[in-house]
C-alpha cells in the first residue's frame, strides 16, 4: 500500500511542480500587477471623474440629496457662465503667460547653469551643484517670508512695487523651478560621454556652440522632462500667488477660482469644479504630447546604451 502510494505521488508530480514554472510565476505577477494598477487608477481617477460629473449639474441638483455619482438633468450652464465671465478668462491668461515665461526663464537659466556645472570643471563646481540641489530642499512655505522682506526692501530702495502684480510671479516661480530643473539637467548632461565635447572642442566649437549644437540636441529628452516639470509647477502653484497677489485682475487660475467662486461660506461648487477641470486641461494636453519624451527623460542614465 505504502509503496503504491509513493509511486502514484511521484508519477503525478510534474517536473515543473518541483522546480516552479516560469510561465505560471509570470501569470501570477501579471495578475497582481493588474490588480494594483486598476486599484490605483480608480483611486486617482475618482476625483477628476467627480469633478466632471459635478460640473454638469445645476446648483439645485448639487445641493439636492440625490446620488452624487449620477447626473439626472445634465446642463452646460456652468461652462457657459464661467467662460462668459471676463475674470475667469483673465485668470487663464495670467496663468498661461506666467507659466510660459517661467518655463522659458527656467530653461534658459538651468540649461546653461547645468552645462557649466556638469562640464566646465572649475573650482567649487561640485560644491555648487550640491548647493543647487539643497536649495530645492527648502520648502516654499519658508521662502516666502524672506521674499516678502526682499520685495519690501526693493520698494523702499528703488520705489518699485513688486507686490500684487501677476508678472511678479515670473520672478518668484523660478526660485522653485530652477534648482530642480538644473539638477535634472546636470544628471542628463553628465550622462553624455566626455569625448563628445572634446571632439567638438577639437572641431573648433566654442563652449556656447558645444552647448547649442551638441548638448541641447542630444539632451532633448531631458530638456523636455524639465520643461514639463517646470510648466506643471508654474501652472499649479497656489501658495505664492495667494500670498503675493490680491486684486482680481492680477490673480492666476488656482487662486482665482478659490477666491472668486467661494464667497464667504457660499461655495459655487458647479463652477469651481468646471474651472478646476478646465484648468487641468493644458498640463494634460502637454503631457499627452510629450509623454514618450518625458519617460525617456526620467529613465535616462538608468542603463548604459
Amino acid at each position, binding site marked *: 500500500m505504502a509503496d503504491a502510494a509513493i509511486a502514484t505521488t511521484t508519477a503525478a508530480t510534474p517536473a515543473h511542480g518541483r522546480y516552479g514554472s516560469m510561465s505560471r510565476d509570470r501569470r501570477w505577477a501579471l495578475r497582481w500587477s493588474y490588480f494594483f494598477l486598476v486599484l490605483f487608477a480608480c483611486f486617482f481617477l475618482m476625483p477628476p471623474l467627480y469633478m466632471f460629473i459635478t460640473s454638469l449639474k445645476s446648483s439645485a441638483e448639487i445641493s439636492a440629496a440625490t446620488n452624487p455619482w449620477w447626473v439626472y438633468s445634465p446642463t452646460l450652464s456652468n461652462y457657459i457662465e464661467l467662460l462668459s465671465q471676463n475674470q475667469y478668462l483673465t485668470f487663464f491668461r495670467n496663468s498661461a503667460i506666467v507659466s510660459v515665461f517661467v518655463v522659458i526663464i527656467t530653461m534658459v537659466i538651468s540649461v546653461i547653469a547645468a552645462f557649466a556645472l556638469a562640464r566646465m570643471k572649475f573650482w567649487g563646481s561640485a560644491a555648487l551643484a550640491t548647493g543647487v540641489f539643497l536649495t530645492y530642499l527648502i520648502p516654499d512655505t519658508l521662502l516666502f517670508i524672506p521674499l516678502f522682506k526682499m520685495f519690501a526692501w526693493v520698494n523702499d530702495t528703488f520705489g518699485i512695487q513688486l507686490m500684487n502684480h501677476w508678472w511678479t510671479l515670473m520672478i518668484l516661480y523660478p526660485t522653485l523651478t530652477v534648482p530642480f530643473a538644473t539638477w535634472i539637467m546636470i544628471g542628463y548632461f553628465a550622462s553624455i560621454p566626455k569625448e563628445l565635447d*572634446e571632439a567638438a572642442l*577639437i572641431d*573648433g*566649437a566654442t563652449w556656447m556652440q558645444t552647448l547649442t549644437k551638441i548638448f541641447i540636441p542630444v539632451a532633448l529628452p531631458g530638456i523636455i522632462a524639465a520643461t514639463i516639470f517646470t510648466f506643471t509647477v508654474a501652472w499649479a502653484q497656489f501658495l505664492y500667488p495667494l500670498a503675493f497677489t490680491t486684486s482680481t485682475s492680477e490673480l492666476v487660475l488656482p487662486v482665482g477660482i478659490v477666491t472668486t467662486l467661494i464667497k464667504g461660506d457660499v461655495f459655487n461648487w458647479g463652477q469651481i469644479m468646471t474651472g478646476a477641470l478646465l484648468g487641468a486641461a493644458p498640463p494634460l494636453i502637454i503631457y499627452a504630447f510629450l509623454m514618450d519624451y518625458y519617460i525617456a527623460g526620467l529613465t535616462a542614465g538608468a542603463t548604459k546604451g
Partner: protein
Amino acid sequence: MAQVTLRKVIKKYDEVLAVRGIDLDITDKEFIVLVGPSGCGKSTTLRMIAGLEEITGGDIAIGGDVVNDVPPKDRDIAMVFQNYALYPHMNVYENMSFGLKLKRTPKDEIDRRVKQAAQILDITELLDRKPKQLSGGQRQRVAMGRAIVRDPKVFLFDEPLSNLDAKLRVQMRTEIKKVHQKVRTTTVYVTHDQVEAMTLADRVVVMNAGLIEQVGSPNDLYHSPATKFVAGFIGSPAMNFEPCHLEQAAGALRVRLSDTLAFPVPADRTARYASHVGKANLVLGLRPEHIIETRPHIEPNQHDFDTMIDVVEPMGMETLVYFTIAGAELCGRVNPNAGATAGKVMKLRADLSNMHLIDDGTGRVL
C-alpha cells in the same frame, strides 16, 4: 611641415606625476605609436598634444610653434577617440562636415572634401545615415573621416580599435595604414596592444610609469631592446627571463642557468660581458623562437639540452612548449611534428646568438 616636438613635458594630477618629463621628436609625415601598459601616461601625452589636458611643465611644439597655451581648435589637429565620439543626432555627412562648417568653409568646398574622404574610406553610401544605424567598424571609419576632412597638421588616435572585435581590429589596422599611405599626415597613435604598435608604426615609443623606455623602429625594439621592460613588452609570447650568472671557463664565458645547465656565451660578446662575471642579479633574455626542437644540422652558438615539458600548446603552424628551469617558466616554439608531449623529456635547442643579458637591478640590457 608638421613635426611635433615634446621637450621635458610633465603632467601632474594633484600630487600624482602621470608624465615625468619626456622628450620626443616626431618628424613630418611620420607614423608614431605610443605603446605601454595602462597608466603609463601614453593617453595623457596624446591628450596634451591635443590640448585636452594642460601641461604642468615643459614645451609642446607643433610645426615649430610652441602650443602650450593654444586651445585645441587652433592647434590644427584632428583626433579619433576610442568610443568614436560621433555626434548622435547628426548623420555621417553632418558629422564629417561639422568642423568645417564651424570654420565657415564654403559649402562646395565642404562637399568636395567630405565626398573625397568618404571615397578614401569607402563610406560614400553611408553619408545620410545616423551613427546608431552603423556597425562598429563603420563608425570607426566615420570617425576617421571626420579627421581626414579637416586636413589637419597632425592626426591623433586614442586606442581607436579597442572597441572592435579581434577580426575587425586586424582589418581596420590595415585600413588605417592604407589611409596613412594615401594622406601622409603626421600621426600619433596610442595603443596598449604591442602587435598594433609593431604593425602600424614607423617608430614605436614604449612608455612605462610616465617615462619613455625606448624609441625605435619596430625591428629595433624587437631585436635590440634597451631595457628589460621593452624586451618583455614587445613580442608575443613574451621574451623568456631566466636568472643566471656569468662564469669564466677556459678563456671563454659561460652563462649558468642552474647547477646542471650552462651555455657558452658567443665569442663576439665575450668582451662586452667580461666585466659582469660573478655579478649577482643577472638575467638571461631569450625569445621563444630561439628555443626550438633539436635538428640534425647545428649552427654556431646553438646548444642542445634536455628538459621535462610541462605544457604543450599547439598553434597550428607551430607548437608552444612550456618548461621550467631553476624555478622559472620558459617557453619555446617548436615544429608541430617534433613530438612535444606534456610530462615527457624533450631535447630542445637554445640559440644563444640572439641572447640578451640584463642587469635586473637597473633593468638595462647589457
